């Protein structure tokens, strides 16, 4: 069975500080990976997707960047946090071999002060 793990679970950071959030998926080779952002009480907004190592496509510009250094790893980062970056960040993978189901990780809660 596939498992998706995100780290850290939660972060409290200062405005202007750097950020790195990570995601690892096990049990699935060459997965399509996604980063989503969710404001408190809000909808799910896709930020980035990656279909292979080294390739990342941006969907929404939020002064964030993403990288895919390994087949099973997806990283979200920024050098300078804004207050508007606060929220819940979700990594997900898509099962193209099935009916196209999208599966989310447990999420990382970010509070920017």
């Amino acid at each position, binding site marked *: 069975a596939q498992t998706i793990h995100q780290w850290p679970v939660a972060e409290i950071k200062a405005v202007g500080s750097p950020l790195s959030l990570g995601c690892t998926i096990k049990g699935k080779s060459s997965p399509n990976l996604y980063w989503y952002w969710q404001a408190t*009480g809000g*909808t*799910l907004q*896709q930020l980035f997707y990656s279909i292979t190592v080294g390739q990342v496509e941006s969907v929404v510009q939020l002064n964030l960047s993403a990288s895919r250094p390994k087949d099973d790893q997806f990283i979200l980062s920024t050098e300078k946090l804004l207050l508007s970056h606060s929220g819940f960040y979700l990594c997900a993978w898509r099962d193209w071999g099935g009916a196209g*189901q*999208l599966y*989310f990780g447990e999420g990382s809660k970010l509070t920017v002060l």
Partner: protein
Amino acid sequence: QQQVRQSPQSLTVWEGGTTVLTCSYEDSTFNYFPWYQQFPGEGPALLISILSVSDKKEDGRFTTFFNKREKKLSLHIIDSQPGDSATYFCAAGYNQGKLIFGQGTKLSIKP
């Protein structure tokens, strides 16, 4: 901009009752419609999904209905339980492409 509209924003149902959540979408070419359940502090979990070739799919107490002509879908929860209290998101898109999520419905089941 393509949108997926979800209603109501919040809903309270008595235990044992039937919950009905609805969504509408704009793009008639969409063919894949999943529903997600999210508990506070957790990632959304896929609850049930339907492809546009079907008009109904059932999984235990959860049933999703799809109306292609009206571009609407709904989620029915029968015998609603306090453990069903969560936020529910519908989505619309392609099973091999993009997905757009609704704004969510916060459901509370009262014992």
